């Protein structure tokens, strides 16, 4: 009996949803008269709505940052002027105005690194070094204090770079932690398993806001007196602690789907537990759960919006900040349309990329 058996639990079968939509109701004549009429009606209404939207967003829109002209519209057209006027505040938050080339450069560096990391043929050690270098560059550009850049405290970071930092940092730190928690939950050692289950269930049982409040108000109480952790870092810790529990459950699903035979084969080859996990089981398990993993990551992106409740001005918070100007308060739709498009774009890129990656790895493993 090897240590391996401590890890192996009976595998559960996963069922895949059929690729094509099931005909419903079955036997209903496709293309029947009623069905066609419904389709045409929806298309007509859709076209009407699309026309109204085009009329509002383009034909009647005011692009000049002129509040009087915008109010004269009386919402018959979009007032994109609010974005022209406030785009720096929305994108970069309260970062000092003259220095805002720095968050712009930092955002581009980070986006570039993410883009490069998505190109499969480039995966390797060099890319890893480049990504780490990009992260360092991000912090130097944002925080300053080096190379003659004026220091800027994290309380003044905001907008898109803060959203990206919390998302990328949250995912990068939560993923390994989640894998460890999932392995712990599958462990045959009752103490380890119990501790992991307790952590995962407790964190998943409370809303993120409770964790954010805890990180913001009471985490300092649990640290040695005099030791102060930066608020942005405390919030990042809360996001990591929260997301890791959800990722752990996703990874556990993958581990459960690996047949016992894989463990036994690894043991037969003479691999000990860490090697069997690292070389045989995890690579397969993680590949199976790519889609739900990416869904959880998109969840992290959306969850970063909550930090505005504890007064960090990432994208959602900076829009609120911009709209607190009474001159522009009426044009909230335009502001929220902008950030919704940003979230939507990132989310769709992530989900389409994961679908593509899944096809690629499937093609490679056959």
């Amino acid at each position, binding site marked *: 009996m090897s240590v391996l058996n401590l890890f192996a639990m009976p595998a559960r079968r996963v069922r895949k949803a059929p690729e094509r939509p099931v005909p419903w109701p079955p036997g209903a004549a496709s293309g029947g008269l009623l069905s066609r009429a419904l389709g045409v009606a929806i298309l007509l209404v859709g076209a009407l709505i699309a026309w109204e939207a085009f009329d509002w967003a383009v034909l009647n829109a005011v692009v000049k940052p002129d509040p009087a002209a915008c109010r004269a519209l009386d919402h018959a057209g979009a007032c994109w002027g609010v974005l022209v006027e406030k785009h720096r505040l929305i994108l970069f938050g309260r970062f000092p105005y003259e220095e805002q080339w720095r968050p712009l450069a930092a955002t581009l560096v980070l986006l570039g690194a993410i883009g490069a990391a998505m190109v499969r043929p480039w995966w390797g050690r060099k890319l890893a070094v480049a990504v780490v270098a990009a992260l360092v560059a991000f912090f130097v550009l944002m925080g300053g204090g080096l190379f003659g850049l004026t220091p800027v405290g994290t309380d003044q970071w905001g907008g898109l770079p803060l959203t990206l930092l919390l998302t990328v940092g949250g995912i990068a730190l939560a993923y390994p932690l989640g894998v460890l928690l999932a392995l712990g939950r599958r462990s045959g050692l009752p103490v380890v398993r119990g501790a992991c289950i307790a952590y995962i269930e407790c964190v998943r049982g409370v809303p993120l*806001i409770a964790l954010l409040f805890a990180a913001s108000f009471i985490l300092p109480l649990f640290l040695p007196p005099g030791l102060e952790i930066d608020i942005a870092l405390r919030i990042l810790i809360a996001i990591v602690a929260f997301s890791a529990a959800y990722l752990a459950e996703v990874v556990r699903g993958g581990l459960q789907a690996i047949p016992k035979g894989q463990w036994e084969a690894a043991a037969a080859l003479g691999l000990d537990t860490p090697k069997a996990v690292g070389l045989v089981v995890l690579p397969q398990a993680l590949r199976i759960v790519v889609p739900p993993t990416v869904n959880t990551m998109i969840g992290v992106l959306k969850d970063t919006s909550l930090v505005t409740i504890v007064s960090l001005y990432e994208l959602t918070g900076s829009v609120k900040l911009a709209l607190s100007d009474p001159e522009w308060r009426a044009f909230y739709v335009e502001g929220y349309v902008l950030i919704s498009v940003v979230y939507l774009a990132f989310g769709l890129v992530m989900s389409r990329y994961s679908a593509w990656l899944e096809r690629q790895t499937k093609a490679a493993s056959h």
Partner: protein
Amino acid sequence: MGMGSAMLHRPWLRPRAVAIQAAVALGLLAVLWWLWGNLQANLAIRNLRLGFSFLDQPAGFALSEGVLGYQAGDSYLHAFAAGVANTIRVSVAAILLTTLLGTLIGVARLVENRVVRALATGYVDIVRNVPLLVQVLVWYIALNQTLPPGSEALNPLPDVYLSKEGLSFPAPLHGLGWTIAGWGTVAALAAGWLVGKASGRCAAGGGVALLGIVAAFATGPLLLDTPLAVEVPEANLFTIAGGGTLSPEFLSLLTALTLYHAAYMAEIVRAGIAAVPKGQWEAAAAVGLGRGRLLSLVVLPQALRVIIPPYISLSLNITKNSSLAVAIGYPDVVAVANTSMNQNGQAVECILIVASVYLTMSLLTSAVLNLYNRKFALRER
């Protein structure tokens, strides 16, 4: 030999395993001990003391709405109870509406009509990718900016008013007639369930329940001469008075929660129906079942097996996400805790209360879920 065989059957008792577990346990205890020590030191510096005795003391804040009759000056405990009630109120309403809308969209994603399918798919793709908080804020500001003030309230239906002050509608006036109707309905439903179970016929149970409910509502006005009184809201020059009211905060939170989670519900329903193999549809059609019985006897029971576990965790998510209330000032339990700790500085206790309220709901739900799984999960040979 006894020792050896015990270790063979319980591998976690082997020396190495015991050593690892002891190390983990000691490490965790050490970390907890360290945190506890820091907490004591920090509280001493700040002159604070842990404890829940503050719950008896009067809370100096008012809540903008609630069902437990809380008023400024009542105890903190009362305030928290009112907060929990508000959380439950908005969550239950959101769960019901999400179930209806989500099922509709989920089925729409499976119909053969390509336009309907594209519409449902587009809805799901867009709504799921925009953060819930953004949606909550947009609905809240939209209601606040587009609705007229109370003096010029919209009157979409007779006796129903919609304005910045909220949605006012006729509401039952507390009285004996309604009390009998309410408890009578509960009793009738229970009796119907029992009859249905005992006779094995759904229709019998439904009939008993229906008769009972009608009787319960008729008892007051017909036999006891206490009418089912209704209070109708009235518009005067400045505001809307009387009747039941749903605040704009409640309405916008409810709308955002419903529209957001309906997209997730749609995915759950779609996956559940898609998981029923095509052969089951064909087999049911082949034995001559009509469309209604085909769905109710063959497809839905199998689909529900797949749908119910994720549906329950979605309901839990709705409850947890209702905590976004704090962003728009709806007085749920998180908002109450937030206000309380700003007033009395008992942050540790307040966050602990919030966490335990949600944890209790989660653990109860997962217990129910496990029971369900044990009872209904597909047993393979």
